């Protein structure tokens, strides 16, 4: 057995090394534009939706928005769920490529890890659109996401309106460097910066975390007893800050959060939280299908398609 197996393996390896390439079976052929054409021929467009996880209400709503819109337009929608595993997402997108869908809507589990399979899809003439999270390292036809800058502005404007256009305020930032924290902060500062009557007392990161929101706010209160307004980059921090404010006995502090989590919406109803900015995942799904439809018909689309936000207040 050894006498047969060893030469066999050795020759296999030599052959393998000699014949290795980065080129796949189909990529030698010119980018097959025939795939979308074939799909269009029978009149029905097939769209693949690759979601990072369906164990999260946000993405379930996103899928629902896409499903409803697809049904309205007679588009066939195939949803695959990566369960937050980049490898699983890669495999399921490969399956969509085999299925020869016209457009793939992808909500990456990890922005960088999907780049290879996005390249594979676009190489085969399939248009790719990213939803909610962007793709890093490969070109997509469009990116559809909540406009966090607009959301930050919305929060800032509401806060100032509540305070009569002036006041002493605090900003609790999300994880430093994360796009959500950057963009929400940017929008907020567009509104509050450069106003003579508005004073930013403190601006500190609390990492999107409720416990940190509490302790950071406690520290801020130690130095500033006359806080009138707080903007937190997410609801968790806002709810944490609220606890600190209540414990310190401060009255009439306007706290605005972001994300409209169930806890936060309940707090708005109870009147403790002033407002929270709500993303509209169903709209992201709906815009995704509309964009896919345009792409399948050969029309051009905008590179970034912002999805409007909603302010939930009492």
């Amino acid at each position, binding site marked *: 057995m050894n006498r047969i197996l060893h030469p066999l393996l050795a020759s296999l390896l030599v052959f393998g090394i000699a014949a*290795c390439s980065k080129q796949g079976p189909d990529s030698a052929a010119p980018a097959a534009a025939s795939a979308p054409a074939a799909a269009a021929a029978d009149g029905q467009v097939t769209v693949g939706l690759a979601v990072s996880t*369906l164990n999260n209400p946000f993405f379930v709503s996103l899928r629902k928005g896409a499903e409803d819109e697809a049904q309205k337009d007679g588009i066939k929608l195939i949803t695959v769920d990566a369960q937050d595993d980049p490898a699983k997402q890669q495999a399921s997108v490969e399956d*969509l490529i085999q299925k020869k869908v016209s457009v793939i809507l992808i909500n990456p589990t990890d922005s960088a890890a999907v780049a290879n399979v996005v390249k594979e899809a676009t190489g085969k003439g399939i248009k790719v659109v990213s939803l909610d999270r962007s793709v890093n390292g490969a070109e997509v036809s469009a990116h559809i996401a909540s406009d966090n800058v607009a959301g930050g502005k919305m929060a800032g404007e509401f806060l100032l309106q509540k305070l009569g256009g002036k006041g002493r305020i605090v900003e609790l930032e999300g994880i430093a460097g994360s796009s959500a924290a950057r963009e929400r902060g940017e929008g907020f500062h567009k509104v509050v910066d450069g106003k003579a009557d508005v004073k930013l007392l403190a601006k500190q990161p609390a990492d999107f975390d409720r416990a940190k929101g509490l302790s950071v706010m406690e520290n801020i209160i130690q130095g500033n007893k006359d806080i009138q307004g707080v903007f937190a980059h997410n609801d968790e921090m806002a709810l944490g800050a609220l606890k600190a404010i209540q414990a310190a006995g401060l009255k009439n502090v306007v706290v605005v959060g972001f994300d409209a989590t169930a806890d936060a919406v309940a707090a708005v109803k109870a009147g403790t939280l002033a407002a929270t900015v709500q993303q509209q995942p169903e709209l992201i799904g709906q815009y995704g299908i509309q964009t896919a439809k345009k792409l399948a018909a050969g029309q051009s689309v905008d590179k970034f398609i912002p999805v409007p936000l909603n302010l939930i207040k009492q």
Partner: protein
Amino acid sequence: MTPKQKATLQRLGPFIALVLVSVGLAVLSPDFLTVANLLNVMRQVSINALIAFGMTLVILLGGIDLSVGSILALSSVAIATLIQAGVNPMLATLLGVIGGGLMGLFNGLVISKGKVAPFIATLASMTILRGLALVVSGGSPITGFNSDLFSMLGGGYVAGLLPIPVLWMLIMFGLFAFLLKKTVFGRHVYATGGNEEAARLSGVKVDQIKLWVYTLSGAMSAMAGVVLTSRLNSAQPTAGSGYELDAIAAVVLGGTSLTGGRGWIFGTLMGALLIGVLNNGLNLLGVSSFYQQVIKGVVILLAVLIDRSGKK
């Protein structure tokens, strides 16, 4: 039918199941039975198969290895860190696989010398190694290796057709089949799994066998980590969670007994392919991902029930 024929048929059960499911999918989806798709499935299966080959030996011993997913992740981020530190990508890969083997050896030592049940020992190392993967990577994915050679390991093709991960899978299949069938080591694995005390009394160095088997399992997980990292061009500290269950499912579907002593690598390959074909086929058919989980669970249950009923 003679008992021997019946036994042969029994052993071919996983293969027959694979053929039946494939025929069904081919009828239902025109995209299933194409060369491109079959190669696609094989490539997707390779990661699970590599882990499952190692897991087969572990289960043949009557043990279990829950740490495979964590070993995959830790070797993956270790390799990525080495490459980014300027180490030659091939050397980093080799070190990563050896490292995976050492993590397996640690499991083996705790189990054989420390007399800890495999379930508990590997449950602990699963947690420890996952934590270390997060420590090494700082919790975020490591990306951007820019090494063509490294990206070939998981993303390349042989002769423009056969994906390299599939080649790894076939080579390792050959090696493991040979190891189990033709070597003294293989016979000792079966003997130890069948009856550890009897094996010990007849001169099998049981502890040494255990060390080797867990080391191999670790090295195979690291190898799967190499394929995954190369294909994604990204090392994820959270990669591979839940993979131990996929591997165990492949082994069990392949007819290897969880109580040890009976089983084979061919069955594991068939089991891994069956899971992969189901994943792929259900995606092609556009079956809801929630139902996919239900269907896969039912298939595993059926396969094991049929296997049990035949062995009475």
